[in-house]
């Protein structure tokens, strides 16, 4: 029998993959993908809680989150395009001018 715990475990796994992906990846597109994983993990846990708590507010929240995620990734990709035009690279560790 699959219960709430299993869903939360999966969402926790997704979330950790996202956080680890952001910390170890050097390619900004992969970092953006990992950021999407964070929001997907939260969505999963919202839906799981909503299903097992028996109220629908959680599923409603997911729609809003999908919308916000779309806005965020749109801005993210726009900045990535600008970055590629300017630096001709997608490696995040090339961004090192701002340091002392």
């Amino acid at each position: 029998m699959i219960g709430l715990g299993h869903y939360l475990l999966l969402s926790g796994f997704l979330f950790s993959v996202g956080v680890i992906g952001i910390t170890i990846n050097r390619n900004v597109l992969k970092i953006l993908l990992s950021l999407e994983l964070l929001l997907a993990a939260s969505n999963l846990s919202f839906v799981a809680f909503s299903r097992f708590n028996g109220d629908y507010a959680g599923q409603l929240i997911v729609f809003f989150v999908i919308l916000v995620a779309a806005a965020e990734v749109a801005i993210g990709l726009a900045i990535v395009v600008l970055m590629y035009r300017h630096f001709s690279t997608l490696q995040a560790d090339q961004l090192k001018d701002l340091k002392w």
Partner: protein
Amino acid sequence: MFPIIHWNLISLELLITVTLVGLIVLDILLPPETGKDWTGLISFTALLIMIGFWSTQRNLSGETMGGMFIMDSLAWFFKGFFLLAMVFVFPMTRQFLKSLPKWRNEFYFLLWLALLGMCLVASSGDFLMLFISIEILTISLYVMTAYLKSDHHSLEAGMKYLILGALASGFLLYGISFLYGVTHSTGFAVIQGYAATHAMNPTILFGLVLIFAAIGFKIASVPFHLWVPDVYQGAPTPVTALLSVGSKAAGFVILIRLFFGVFASWHPQWSSVFAPLAALTMCYGNLGALFQTNIKRLFGYSSIGHAGYLLMGAAAGSILGASAINFYLLGYLFTNLAAFLVIVLFFVTNKSDEINDYAGLATRSPLLAGVLLLALVSLAGVPPLVGFFGKFTLLMATVQSGLLWLALIAAVNVIISLYYYLIVVKRLYVDPPRVNSPIPISSSMRFILWMAVAGIVGIGIIQGPFLEAAMTAAKGMCFLP
């Protein structure tokens, strides 16, 4: 059955939205080569009208949209705060955009969007509303940070801000999902009811830590401060000013509402977390600022230091602590924005943010040097300026809550901060100028500068009514236990 919407409660936000949409339409209708900065002029006029409108909302309180939107004294105070911040940011933007060949008007739309987001943050009564309004604010700030498309510092700052900001909103959302799972609701009122009757459990604690991470990102507290120096240096200066005042205050209004209101019954647990965080944050900020050569980066570290002072009020956990945060932020608004006005005006003529280029500013422009001197000295906390009295109230709240060690660390930090602020003052007044050309300032900018000076000196001398307003804001907050 649908809840009744009280339109008068959300009228300020509606007005902002209408202005924003109106400006976009106007921008399409006006011919592109009108040659005048209409969007800036209309924005500023609309802002002044809105401040008048805001002052009529003083006694408005209540909730609407099923508790999603609340209006109380705290929200009123902070909405005024954000409008006032914009009074300085709009003229700064106008000066700054002179150096841009095109794409000027879009910047004002983004500023209005950020203002809308900040006002909604101050009024949110539900975690869903909170998440959406924070995203409205942050996403418009991402775009503004990366606004100078051909400047690689701006792009780099935008990229870094986006990655870390999106990480913070991921944390916030994941934390909310656990609170929702345990309490079966995202409304502040229901969650407060849960907190009052239950002890803290590990699931809730996990959610709260994640939510605090997102707030810590906004207010630039250690260990979520990594973005601050880079983004402050790379972003266009008006955006840096908005980040250092508006975005930080938006973080603190959530912090006050959540930890002084909704979760107040768990006060002992979180107070013991805030006190060491406050100490670490102020030490990090003030030590990091010591050897900076770029003035915007210096202000980035100084802003981390001030987040540490402000967290002292949160660690105090009393109503006096919350009032002290409100009052300190008000003083910080005038002081920091005065400094950023000078930085913008200096940048427009000299195209530099290096502290060494500020040498001999006192002979080139006595007004700019004087205003910057006043701002720096007030940030360091020298009486009778507003920075001194703000620090005094924060320290008083801390000592009253029995955190004497924290107050002592703050006192040491004030001394450290004097060093790097006075280094800049030495550049301004002692060092000989490299170029002798005077810096032209238009009479409207002179007026704005004098307004900031009036705030720094005026609130420092006549603290009474302002402290009272800060007190009223904290005492009349919704969800107060």
